[in-house]
């Protein structure tokens, strides 16, 4: 039963990942951006669990829990607190208008799929088709970081990229060795904390988190 529907479910979740990535790309409101990020993390968690149960890779459960703890609970919580403390609830201005961004996004997805299709054939895993989607997610979050002018959305994009990577790891290779996943998770967490500190400092210097204030260092 599960063996039969499992792979399809994984593909479904992959599709959801991609959908959420696009949603984030399109999203203007910062709160819902965070929520979308959390949702993406949750999807990631589900797919990891699913892959774990399908393949019986014990350590995947671990990494799934890690995902849950970090990407669904910790980070969104930190972000929410930050937003509240910094009370920045404004809409996210984009440097590029949304439709154009989406258009770019679609091009990226096509590229990612083309890139991944030969690799997926090689993948011996049940979740081979997810690699392309993971790649697409990474590229999309990259695009999002480029198009957002505020600090917080950029960070969210950064974290979303981590999600994509994580998904690639689980999708392509049943997750990396545990040591490394812990390491990665640790780094992400520390990065988040440092970012938190940064937000406050940037705030108190420029009383704004708009990265357009961060354009003084340049050559002319």
């Amino acid at each position: 039963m599960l063996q039969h529907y499992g792979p399809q479910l994984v593909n479904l979740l992959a599709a959801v990942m991609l959908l959420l990535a696009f949603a984030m790309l399109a999203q203007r409101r910062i709160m819902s951006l965070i929520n979308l990020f959390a949702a993406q993390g949750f999807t990631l968690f589900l797919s990891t669990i699913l892959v774990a149960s399908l393949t019986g890779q014990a350590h995947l459960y671990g990494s799934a829990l890690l995902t849950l703890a970090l990407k669904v609970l910790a980070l969104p919580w930190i972000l929410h607190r930050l937003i509240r403390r910094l009370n920045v609830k404004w809409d996210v201005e984009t440097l590029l208008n949304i439709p154009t961004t989406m258009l770019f996004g679609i091009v990226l997805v096509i590229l990612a799929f083309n890139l991944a299709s030969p690799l997926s054939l090689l993948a011996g895993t049940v979740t081979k088709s997810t690699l392309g989607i993971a790649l697409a997610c990474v590229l999309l979050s990259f695009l999002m970081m480029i198009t957002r002018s505020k600090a917080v959305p950029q960070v969210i994009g950064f974290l979303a990229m981590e999600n994509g990577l994580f998904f690639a790891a689980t999708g392509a290779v049943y997750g990396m060795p545990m040591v490394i996943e812990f390491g990665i998770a640790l780094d992400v967490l520390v990065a988040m904390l440092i970012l938190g500190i940064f937000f406050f400092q940037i705030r108190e210097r420029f009383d704004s988190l708009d990265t357009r204030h961060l354009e003084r260092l340049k050559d002319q």
Partner: protein
Amino acid sequence: MTMSGAPVHEVLGVACAWLLIGALGLLRPASVDWTTRFLYPAGAVAGLALAAIALSAIFQPAASVVLPLGLPDLPFHVRLDALSAFFLLLLGAVSAGVSIYACGYFRQAQGTSLGLVCLYFHVFLASMALVMVADDAYFFMVSWETMALSSFFLVTVDHDHAEIRKAGYLYLLIAHLGAIAILLCFGALQAGTGDYTFEHMRALQPSASWATAAFLLALVGFGAKAGIVPLHVWLPEAHPAAPSPVSALLSGVMLKTAIYGLIRVTFDLIGSPLWWWGVLALALGLVSALGGIVFAAVQIDMKRLLAYSSIENIGLIFAGLGLTIIFHGFGMGALAALALTATLFHCLNHAVYKSLLFLCTGSVLHATRERSLGRLGGLIRRMPWVAWCALIGTIAIAGLPPSNGFASEWLLLQAFLFTPGLPHGYLNMLVPVAAASVALTAALSGYVMVKFFGVVFLGQHREARLAEAQEAGVWERTGLAWLAAACIFLGLVPATAIGLLGPITRALTGHGIGNLAQGWLFLAPINAERASYSPLLVFAVTSLLVAVAWLAVRAFYHGRACRAAAWGCGFPDQNARMQDTAEGFGQPVRHVFEPFFRLEQHEPAPDDANPRFSSSAEDRLWYWIYLPIARAVAYLTALVTLLQRGRISVYLAYSFVTLLALLLFIR
């Protein structure tokens, strides 16, 4: 690789001695006595020793040693053959005179402490010696760049003046570019084998295209150091900026290291030059010679004037080299030998008389604190020693018999007279023209040197304070006398000096010149029937005639003379300002060769309260080549800075685009 080379070790010993002397200078950097009583004389002795060693080494077979230094796979190779020995002789002989002179010159520190100057000075000497014995690319480049660096510090000894700093900067920049070109030339010669010894490069037979690439790179690199047009711009800036003994070394010896390098690469490492390279070198040389002397004629700073005349002489040397390559390329070995002999002999002569003249300007500078010709004059009465030495140098550089300058130009012209025999239609028609321009250059240098000597030493003092000018000290006079004596010796018995060149021409072109058949008295490159010249006889006969005339006048008439005010067509109040100025003396040349210059003249208006006249003749090349390059670079930098506009999204976009591009690229 024969290990039987005593001279090699001695040369290295001299180099080490120089380095040691330099280092000792730092012991008591402020002490005048320490440097001028002990170190510089010691350096001079080392120079003499080097000359003696080199003299003995010319006729010995090439010997080489390997030092335990350098890169792991590439220890320093040292080799002493006739060519190196000849240039070492040049270095030793000239540096001896200059070092003696330096004892008297470096007496008060300007900007840099005496000990440091002493260090630079001797490191410079040592590095030049090492350049001439280096036998692998790395050692050569190390010595070469050390030479450039030490000379840069010497040029900017008095670094408080912005223009001196600027001059040094320009010098080092062009020197460095040239060095990179030379480096690439060696890269082309080692052909990717990773074996950088000259031994190996000699053995390799590069394809015509690689050989050409190597030669062109060498031409650029060494040409930049030699100051060949259009890479000459640093020379008239750096030479005046430097202290005079340094100018003497720069002009007298360092430029010759470039000639050495070019000969080494072309005839020794590449081995089989193509004839058209020679045409290129010849053309460049002639342009430099003519351009150099024409610019020298309009200078109003005595050291700049000499610097430009150095460009001229280097041009003549390049012309000779080009002729050598042409003959060699057509397999006319004997003629190639003749041209090469003329070239090398001219190197030696120029080294001697140009350093002599620079030292004379040094003494004048010391006595008057004045470099501008417009404020000098009449010094022959205040400082006769310097004046008479300068006169010898002047005759030599003007290429008049019986001086050494004439001897080498005579040889060069002889070489040109054979060119109609070339098996190439256009060449043997072009070369008479070349000969003509050489003759024109020689004549012009006479003009320039009359201006130099006449304005500096003759006439009335253009400034009142020149009347207090002091004769040069005994150290300085010794140095001058040494070089003047060398000029006279080389001039009167050139055959002996040319005898030294036999081994070199035989090694490089396979032929000697049939000179010594005629004995030491006569100079007959091919045969006496064709052309022969004996400066000693000419000198003897002329001076005999002079003496006879003098005695006869005394005998038949009388020797009475009385003093009176100058006649000057009876003008009541003659004064010094009525003399021709340096600008005035240059005016005819400016008139005749107008296209050469970028003239800017400012005549006063008729109703001018205090009328002023100013005229400047600048180098067109500076505006045609260098400024455009500078502008282009500035434009590119302006373009590039657009990459760094400070917006983080843009930066992210860069890496994003790079990523996508690469991903597409591998698809």
